[in-house]
């Protein structure tokens, strides 16, 4: 009796794994523990890939776990008479469960090529909109000035406060000043390691305005956790106005008139 109870306990414990696994995925979105809001153009294809793979592996996961439970329940030693039957292996079985996963993976590899190319290979032919230099522990930004060329005397230098226009392609030139960092824009589905010594192009087109996070996704030292920036996506007109304002601020030659509490015009 005790052995049977033990068998039931272990079988049910293993059944709990797929049950709680599926339950977690079902409940998570209600608690906002799901994919962050996507405002980019290519993000939809990345997300749909994610869902497809999740569904596929999810189904396989459930089937496998349920089978595991079923065999534990049905073939419990306490219920069975006699021992197990030994076989010499089944060639057919081996071939089947090799071919099917291989075909699936091959399908996935080909299916995702377009999404990868969109983000990593099909660079738009344009001058960089901004240069982002990752540094321990901040994001230093450099906009080309009125002459449109980076590296000239009229560049605009900022820290952590990235602004970019929506509804058009933007090209970011990513560099690192010291160690490996990773430029991660969760809401734009962009993640690119910043490698010291390399100038890496990053591009996307945003569909929607808003303020989102820039996060560092490669452990870069003691301050990695606080290496946060902010990206503001806004229409081209308001982006240009902001650029003009920041540019004028960079050329300030007189202290502003008394206006306490105005942080933007502070000193």
């Amino acid at each position, binding site marked *: 009796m005790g052995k049977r109870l033990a068998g039931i306990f272990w079988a049910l414990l293993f059944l709990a794994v797929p049950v709680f696994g599926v339950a977690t995925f079902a409940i998570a979105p209600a608690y906002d523990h799901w994919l962050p809001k996507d405002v980019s153009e290519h993000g939809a294809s990345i997300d749909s890939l994610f869902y497809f793979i999740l569904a596929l592996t999810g189904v396989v996961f459930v089937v496998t776990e349920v089978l595991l439970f079923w065999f534990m329940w049905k073939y419990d030693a306490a219920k069975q008479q006699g021992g197990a039957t030994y076989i010499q292996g089944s060639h057919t079985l081996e071939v089947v469960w090799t071919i099917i996963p291989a075909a699936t993976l091959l399908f996935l590899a080909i299916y995702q090529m377009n999404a990868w190319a969109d983000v990593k290979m099909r660079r738009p032919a344009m001058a960089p909109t901004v240069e982002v230099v990752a540094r321990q522990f*901040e994001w230093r930004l450099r906009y080309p000035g009125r002459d449109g060329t980076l590296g000239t*005397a009229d560049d605009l230098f900022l820290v*952590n406060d990235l602004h970019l226009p929506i509804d058009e392609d933007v090209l970011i030139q990513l560099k690192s000043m010291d160690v490996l960092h990773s430029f991660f824009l969760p809401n734009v589905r962009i993640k690119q390691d910043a490698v010291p010594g390399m100038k890496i192009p990053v591009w996307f087109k945003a569909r929607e305005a808003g303020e989102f996070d820039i996060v560092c996704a490669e452990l870069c030292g003691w301050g990695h956790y606080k290496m946060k920036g902010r990206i503001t996506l806004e229409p081209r007109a308001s982006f240009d106005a902001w650029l003009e304002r920041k540019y004028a601020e960079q050329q300030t030659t007189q202290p502003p008139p008394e206006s306490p509490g105005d*942080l933007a015009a502070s*000193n």
Partner: protein
Amino acid sequence: MNRHLVVASVALLVLAAGCGKTPPASFRLNMVQATKTAAPDSELNTSWTSWSRERQEQVATILEALFGTPDEPVALAESGLDEAKLRLAAGPVRSDIVGRKNGLYREHCVHCHGISGDGMGPTAAFLNPYPRDYRPGKFKFKSTWRDAKPTQADLVRVLHEGIAGTSMPSFALLSAGQVDALAEYVRYLSIRGETEAALFGYAEQELGSGDKLPTTREFLVGEILAPIVEKWKVAEESQIPVAAVPAGIDFSLPGSDLANRESVARGRALFLGDGGCVKCHGVTALGDGQANDYDDWNKAIVEVSKEVAGSLETSRTTSTSGMPAEKLAEYRARAEWLHAFAGVLEGDALRPRTIPPRNLRLGVYRGGRRPLDLYRRLYTGINGAPMPGVGPSGPGAKGSVADAEIWHIVNYLRSLPYEFDGELGADRPMVAKDRF
């Protein structure tokens, strides 16, 4: 069985040692000053350890009375500080009753600047340059006369922009109220540090070894605290006058542009002239003029270390064989104090570093890159650093360069990172776009 018991008990001991409540945070005395002013004189009646420890405890108690603890700051009305803002910044990181985040200083600043604002937090030893020590009350990048305190806007600006080229990050992503609270806490730590220095200074100048520091209101508030707070109060009115930009300068155009050509040439003449800029910054403005000067924070440690090393050497070579009894006691007490002070220097001060003159061709400007910021650095110099000013030293004084001429030097400086200096050879491009 016996072996397993031993292993289990050792593991238990390790766990027990690891857990337990951490004690509340407490301010640290400026131990270098505390030990320095405890130097024994020839009027000893007790061993140096007992009364100097008493004096240190007196100062610590007075400071707690005036300023409270890191978790519970106190702002007397005479200190000019806003206690509400201090409470927002002080204490452990937590949410208050309306859901606002408190403990901002501990969250953002303490790991570099230290709990007492001594610039010796756990991260400090890994940074170059070291984080600022607020206790002497000196600030480098501000809009006021050289020996005046920074204004509120100056402190907020440094928090907002960070300091390019150092590990001081930009806190622009915090709300204005949070930045204000942090600026207030920095002022609080600075006033506290200056009060500590004043108390130790008074004790050294006026008190004998057994005397206690007075704790009357006339003394603590009137004589010690009031002059310090006064300097902070007048900071808002101590901004330097900024001359109008003369004709022939257009900061929106690069220095190589025709509109700026004459002004940049004038600025170059002033820079390379007999003022002495090139003596430190170098003829090529790479900062290679000299490399063995210290800023005030490191200089204090270097000078006191030299003194102590010299005295240790003397005491080591002095022969004690022929000394009369009281001289021997005096000698021994002094040697004991010297060794204790050397120990304090070793453990309670970061290893001093020289401050190299700035490489002006990098395009990295710590105090800010606006023309206004460069003007201010040239006008008053940089307080706490060897950088001298070329403007007047105070209101009504006369400077060595006319105010309007300083703009020409600013124009020249802005053109430096983009100027190709053929003198250095073709393999040393100076153009900023090829560097960070």
